[in-house]
């Protein structure tokens, strides 16, 4: 890999400003914001179902301007601290995908699904703030969106390589960019002043051994990423399920019996997610029809 080229990718990705959201979500939230009876909590619930808006919210609440840099790692807390009016402004300023592709929806579903698994597993482990880890699960693939937006040509090359050579997306990214979405995610999270509690699970979700302080949450997100892929929910064109780290698996102390229970619980919760996804896609089609 040519070093100057790699440096160019790094610079481009670092400049990133505004990541686009699914139009259906923005339409839904805009409607909610116009209704005077909507509460902050209700809007928060919808925002915590979108990896992009969730990342934006965390970026905002952790910006120096609000006075809590690198402090806020859970979405609920971010929502309480920012309040209704700021959230409304965030929705107004949200940009949306101009062209929607199936892959964008798939990635969104994958992120949402991963958050569900993280929540189930961390509750089981008795972690004091499970919401923190599901937040990390929700935004763990934020690097993928950045690559798509800022490096569209390379993104296409990665897509082609995944389909033609039947390699994982992760491997194709390394091959074409010399870096992968986990690394890109780490930069973004760092640049956005997110707390280490979120940076490490994002950066280490493919290799939790790299985590220095947040080993457990990195292991949970790693597990969540693989399990939701294994369940075939929101996979995109990436046909391979990434390998599970033995060490991470041991850390979670999950037995064969546990895994059955966990999978059942996830299946149950996924119904909600699937329903929501359907609602958003309908909203999206309606919005698209309005435009025509």
């Amino acid at each position: 890999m040519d070093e100057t080229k790699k440096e160019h990718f790094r610079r481009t990705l670092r400049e990133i400003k505004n990541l686009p959201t699914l139009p259906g979500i923005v339409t839904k939230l805009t409607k909610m914001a116009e209704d005077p009876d909507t509460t902050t909590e209700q809007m928060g619930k919808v925002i915590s179902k979108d990896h992009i808006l969730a990342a934006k919210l965390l970026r905002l609440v952790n910006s120096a301007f609000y006075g809590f840099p690198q402090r806020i790692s859970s979405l609920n807390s971010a929502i309480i601290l920012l309040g209704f009016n700021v959230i409304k402004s965030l929705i107004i300023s949200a940009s949306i995908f101009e062209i929607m592709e199936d892959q964008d929806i798939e990635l969104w579903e994958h992120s949402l699904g991963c958050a569900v698994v993280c929540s189930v597993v961390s509750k089981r482990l008795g972690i004091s703030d499970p919401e923190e880890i599901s937040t990390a699960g929700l935004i763990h693939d934020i690097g993928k969106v950045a690559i798509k937006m800022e490096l569209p040509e390379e993104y296409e090359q990665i897509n082609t390589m995944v389909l033609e050579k039947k390699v994982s997306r992760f491997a194709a990214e390394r091959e074409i960019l010399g870096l992968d979405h986990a690394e890109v995610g780490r930069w973004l999270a760092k640049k956005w002043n997110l707390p280490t509690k979120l940076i490490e699970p994002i950066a280490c979700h493919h290799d939790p051994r790299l985590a220095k302080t947040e080993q457990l949450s990195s292991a949970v997100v790693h597990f969540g990423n693989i399990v939701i892929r294994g369940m075939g929910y929101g996979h995109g064109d990436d046909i391979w399920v990434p390998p599970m780290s033995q060490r991470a698996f041991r850390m979670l102390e999950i037995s064969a019996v546990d895994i059955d229970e966990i999978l059942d619980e996830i299946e149950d919760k996924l119904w909600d997610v699937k329903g929501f996804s359907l609602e958003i896609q309908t909203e999206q089609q309606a919005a698209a029809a309005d435009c025509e």
Partner: protein
Amino acid sequence: MQRILITGKNILHTPENRLILEAKGYQIILCENLPDAVGLILEDPPDLLITEKGFGGGNHDHELIMAAKACLQKANIPIILVLDQDDLNTEMDWDYYPVDDFMVKPVAPETMLAQIELAESRMVRVFDNNPLSRLPGNTSILRSIQKTIDSDDPYGVCYIDIDNFKPYNDRYGFSRGDEVLLMVARITVNVVEELARDGSFVGHVGGDDFVFIVREEKIKPVCERLVENFERVKNMFLSPEDIKAGAFIGEDRQGKETRFDLLSLSVAVVTTGNHIYKHFGEVSVIASQIKHYAKTLSGSNYVIDRRH
């Protein structure tokens, strides 16, 4: 004042107008669409906003002004609305446009400069706000309390106090302490805004003392949500070890090693109405008694005094 955000079309007319402002040391940011303008206000707020009535179509002009007002940290961003002469012929709804001043198009550069400078000096004059939270300070608080007790309607004057704030400061340092103060300021403003917008007030006495005033029927829902939100957020401001131990060890005022409970919130509420109080001093006397009682209860809670 340094950075001026101008939203709308043709407000500056000629490049010379811009140069005049820039020569005076102002940094001008021009923006013509709503999402970008709101994004700027959210992420990198200006010191002054000049916006055009009718900006972006629909109710976008109103949305933008409300977004600027929502920024707690810069709650005092002065806003100047640019109007057409026609707008003045029909009466303006200044509640819908809560701005500080207006200009009529076409705006001569000298006029614009003078109005910007005036906005600047006016801001310094009314600045009784707390430098950290930017919330109104003592002068405004006392004035609001007096207004409340003079009113026929019943209100709750609510005093917030953060328990164990001093040992927290000793253990985590002042800048971390400031974060907690900002957190309480934001939670309070947000809850009051959302549940009791009309006729309410939030102020920062200083240190870990805050005051808010809401209508009597809103006292309970606001206090409950406030305590609940504080409890949900506070762990973000504590170290994992302290959370696990459920306490931290620090020194008391005599310098003896003591075990302190983790942060909690006490709210002491004095209800008014029927003109039972004549002077704001009476309210604060009662408040300090209830505060004392509230502090003896463990955890976050609120106590309402009803003497009438």
